[in-house]
């Protein structure tokens, strides 16, 4: 098995963000940027723990939380895979609420750096274009 976990995740153990949360966020980003296509199997908890040198319980915690949220599903004998169908039960409002804190951070930071709002909108536009093209 090639080192799948290292390919997917980059963990900063000394960041203030708990490791399990970093994994959850990264899984979601990978799915959103289509790097993890629907139906694809993620590396096992054991693999993640060994390759990234973290506690297996942390990896397992991230995976079970993602399973609870409906992002991943567990297939017996094979491991965790990205859920095929669209996230059920999450309305547009809920999804927008999820992204809102991130947008708030962007706004606050731009204020700090004294960047013009127009510039931020330009940057966002080009990023969205990139994702859309993939």
């Amino acid at each position, binding site marked *: 098995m090639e080192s799948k976990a290292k390919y997917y995740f980059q963990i900063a153990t000394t960041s*203030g963000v708990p490791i399990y949360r970093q994994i959850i966020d990264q899984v979601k980003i990978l799915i959103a940027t289509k790097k993890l296509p629907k139906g694809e199997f993620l590396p096992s908890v054991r693999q993640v723990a060994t390759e990234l040198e973290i506690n297996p319980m942390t990896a397992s915690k991230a995976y079970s939380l993602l399973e609870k949220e409906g992002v991943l599903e567990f297939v017996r004998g094979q491991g965790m895979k990205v859920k095929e169908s669209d996230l059920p039960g999450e309305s547009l409002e809920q999804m927008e609420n999820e992204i809102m804190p991130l947008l708030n951070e962007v706004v606050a930071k731009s204020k700090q750096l004294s960047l013009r709002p127009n510039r931020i909108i330009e940057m966002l536009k080009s990023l969205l274009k990139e994702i859309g093209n993939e």
Partner: protein
Amino acid sequence: MSDHIVEVKNVSKSFNGKIVLNGLTLNVPKGSVFGLLGKNGSGKTTLIKCLLGLLKPHKGDVVTIGDNPLKLKNETKEKLGYVPQSDRIYPWLTVRQAINYTASFYSDWDVELVNKLVSAWELKDTDKVGLMSEGQVQKLSIILSLGHKPELLVFDEPVASLDPTARRQFIKMILDLVADRECTVFFSTHITTDLERVADRVALLKDGKIDFCGELDELKDEVKRLKVTSSDPITGNIDVEGVLSCEILNNEAVISVRGFNERMKKELEDKYKGEVSVENLNLEEIFLELNR
């Protein structure tokens, strides 16, 4: 009750009139990797020694692997491994002789694991212990504590003398152990980066008591640094529950809090008519803040 491999109830211990442990209570769940943090002299070693029955607490009870640590049965000792802060092994023995000596006391000894570690950690069978460096002796000491496949491993500053490579190897070894079988690892350390990687539970020892005990992630969620930017100058200290420190400069204040939640953020935003940005702290910074 049987969920915890170590239970410490209301333990007190003092030396020469100085109180080191003061009514301390702690439970270590089975299978966890448990890190004990504390300033120098806070009593980490004393607590560990009380856990193992090397010291007798003046008050309180300790139960280790279901047994009274002061009168450990031999079967319990077979499940226990301990690495003290600076181990002294007979200096005239070689590495292999020291291993054979220790192995002879245990009924179950994992020869493969020990050999694997000896070569992975670059110890030579024929090196005399008295001539090895502190780091090498520490490595040997760690190996001697694992050979009998214990259920509870207690380390007292196990990596103090190890270089970063060796520390990483040590962490890998712990993770392998924990993944392979039912093993609880309890260790005290100053090196927060190692703890962040490998521990799932953390306890902070302060003033003879446990200041925090729980999941590491919980701790990271609880202790945050907030930057308050207000439209008017801020006067007086910022009064918020659980504030640990506060620095004010005109309209801006940087406070560190314990017990952070979203409501607190909203309250501050309302009170100071401004914005609050939340900074996540890593374990080292949390330790510094909690020990102010």
